[in-house]
């Protein structure tokens, strides 16, 4: 009897505990999330405040924190963060070792290499509640390979001219409204560059070309001017590249003309290029959409060489019709990464990300992948000048593998033009020869 009395409160407590903590009984579903963008636990360790999240790392960390804290399905997203540079090498190794993440980030320029290894997503979107009709034209083109959608687009990033308005003013190159005059032809650009050099003594364009990590910079310029002419490095199919078409040679020659007259900086690395622009070393900085907020912040400081004004424009069309290099970050479901148990969780997380696409664009510095967000996006500072990029931006062709290999090779040849005095024709010849090796393993 005494024993029963003693045990009764224990039994009641145990029952009450079980009754009041049903969630503890529900198993957690874990999904792995392979990405670059860095880690920033010190600033965003447990933050769920998206309004104040800044930078790719900040927004991404906050999004995952928010999802883990608020989803009602007991889903836990475990980020697997990898350095940007060797990200794809590691992903390849993981696929080979069958250690496959549930969701992985992917540049759409790389997607053509991975269609065998990632799931086709169009049927999945319906299940997840994601409407592909809302993809921007550029985002849709980016994630579509051979008519099939293999990724959920996350943004568009592109190549811009960032202007030091003060130097443009000093050179007498502002229009009546105080905005920089954007050249419309190569001759116009070279005339502006000459005027800039004469009036300010400074180079017209700053570009980083000195290290392997910088080769993409000039390649993106090459692609943009090539696309302006309606050109392609694969004019006759993807079996053979042609770097000696008139369009390709014209693109190389723009860089040659800029370099020959010292209108473009030589031998700068990424850090030197960025520091150079912030210190007023040159008038225009060729870099991406993701730098707008950094330069706006710099221009707000009274002692900044950008204090007289900073603005940006789409990479100028010097030829026939406006086009520009673009790429996209996207999310893929690698084959073998999901199980029946965590598949639904992966789709719920993808939908969450889709619903927060604007937060990424606002804080991460890229254009949204959703057309429905463009009006809101255009209201952000200076974004009215870049908001149309998804309508005319051109991604690298998916049918060619090793796009990043091509990008680096082209950039290296342009770096040779700028830094070592190689001629445009020599660079085109070298690119032609090197493309054979790149395509050999298609």
């Amino acid at each position, binding site marked *: 009897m005494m024993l029963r009395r003693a045990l009764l409160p224990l039994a009641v407590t145990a029952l009450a505990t079980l009754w009041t903590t049903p969630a503890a009984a529900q198993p957690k579903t874990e999904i792995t999330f392979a990405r670059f963008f860095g880690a920033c636990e*010190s600033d965003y360790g447990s933050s769920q405040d998206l309004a104040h999240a800044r930078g790719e790392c900040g927004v991404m960390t906050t999004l995952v924190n928010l999802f883990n804290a608020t989803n009602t399905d007991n889903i836990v997203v475990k980020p697997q963060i990898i350095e940007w540079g060797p990200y794809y090498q590691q992903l390849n*190794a993981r696929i080979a070792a069958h250690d496959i993440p549930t969701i992985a980030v992917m540049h759409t320029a790389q997607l053509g290499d991975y269609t065998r290894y990632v799931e086709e997503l169009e049927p999945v979107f319906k299940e997840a509640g994601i409407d592909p009709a809302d993809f921007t034209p550029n985002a849709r083109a980016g994630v579509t390979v051979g008519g099939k959608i293999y990724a959920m687009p996350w943004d568009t990033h592109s190549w811009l001219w960032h202007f030091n308005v003060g130097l443009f003013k000093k050179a007498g190159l502002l229009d009546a409204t105080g905005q920089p005059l954007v050249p419309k032809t190569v001759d116009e650009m070279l005339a502006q560059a000459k005027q800039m050099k004469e009036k300010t003594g400074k180079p017209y364009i700053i570009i980083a070309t000195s290290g392997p990590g910088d080769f993409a910079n000039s390649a993106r310029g090459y692609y943009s001017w090539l696309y302006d002419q309606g050109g392609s490095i694969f004019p006759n199919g993807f079996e053979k590249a042609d770097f000696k078409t008139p369009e390709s040679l014209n693109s190389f020659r723009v860089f040659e003309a800029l370099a020959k007259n010292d209108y473009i900086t030589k031998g700068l690395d990424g850090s030197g290029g960025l520091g150079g622009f912030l210190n007023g070393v040159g008038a225009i900085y060729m870099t991406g959409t993701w730098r707008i907020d950094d330069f706006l912040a710099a221009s707000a400081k009274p002692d900044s060489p950008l204090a007289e004004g900073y603005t940006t424009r789409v990479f100028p069309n010097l030829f026939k019709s406006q086009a520009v290099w673009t790429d996209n970050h996207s999310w893929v479901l690698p084959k073998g990464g999901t199980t029946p148990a965590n598949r639904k969780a992966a789709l719920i997380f993808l939908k969450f990300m889709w619903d927060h696409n604007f937060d990424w664009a606002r804080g991460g510095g890229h254009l949204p992948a959703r057309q429905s967000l463009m009006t809101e996006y255009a209201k952000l500072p200076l974004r009215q000048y870049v908001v149309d990029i998804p309508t005319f931006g051109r991604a690298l062709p998916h049918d060619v593998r090793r796009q990043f290999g091509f990008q680096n090779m082209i950039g290296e040849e342009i770096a040779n033009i700028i830094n070592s005095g190689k001629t445009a024709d020599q660079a085109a010849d070298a690119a032609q020869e090197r493309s054979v090796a790149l395509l050999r393993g298609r």
Partner: protein
Amino acid sequence: MQTYRRGSSFTDRALFIAVALLAIIWIAPIIWVVGLSFKPNEVLMRTTGGIAAPPFTLKNYTDILASSSVFGWMLNSAIVAIGQTVLTLVIASLAGYGFARTNFLGRNALFVIVLAALAVPEQAIIVPLHTMFAMFDLHNTYVALIVPRVAFPFGVLLMTQYFRAISPEIEEAALLDRASRFKIFWRIVLPLSVPAQVTLGIYTFLHAWNDYFWPLVSATRPEMYTLTIGLASMQTNFAQTEGIGFLMAQAVFAGLPVLILYLFFQRYIVSAVAGGGSK
């Protein structure tokens, strides 16, 4: 260690000045790295000069320490580096003694194969190595991080050469006393080879601690990252332009254990670099 003395010849003085200049040139980038690691990233976006001028910050270091994983990565690096060092010493010593002191069929051919392995770059075998460990489902384990590195041809070569240089008469005396081969190795030869062991141990430890490529493709889960992979994963996409202070702090942080090791064992490291083990 020889020190510079007053009254040395002109050649000695010139040599001293040249060496001092070279040392300054060599150490300047390291001082620069340390200096940059105490500067705010926003300042370094504009210029990476003026490391001695304020502002200074500890944020780059606190950012590293704020990562909940960093001490786990450090522990992984320590386990891997110590594991590799111990196993390499065991294998290289045994193999080296075998090549130096025993006669067996195919010894020379086998030694040539070991030497040939010195010429095979790591990248050439990475795919089959990765596939093999994937087949046995060993990736993301300490075994995968340690084992591929313990067959270290340079270590075998170093120990072989060292054992060959030890007078065989000592062993012959022991053989006459009917000591077994292993006993001779364990009791007589191994203690004599301590300088070479230390040299090889330090070399292996440093190599293991700094290793990047193999851990990158084998340790793909953050909990199994070594310090090099973990610290690199923290970098943003534009680290080389906007996070230079953090990048430099990472380099200093990752290098500290190695620096401490160097302070304790510099005599052996110098001798290793100078000629492969003091005798």
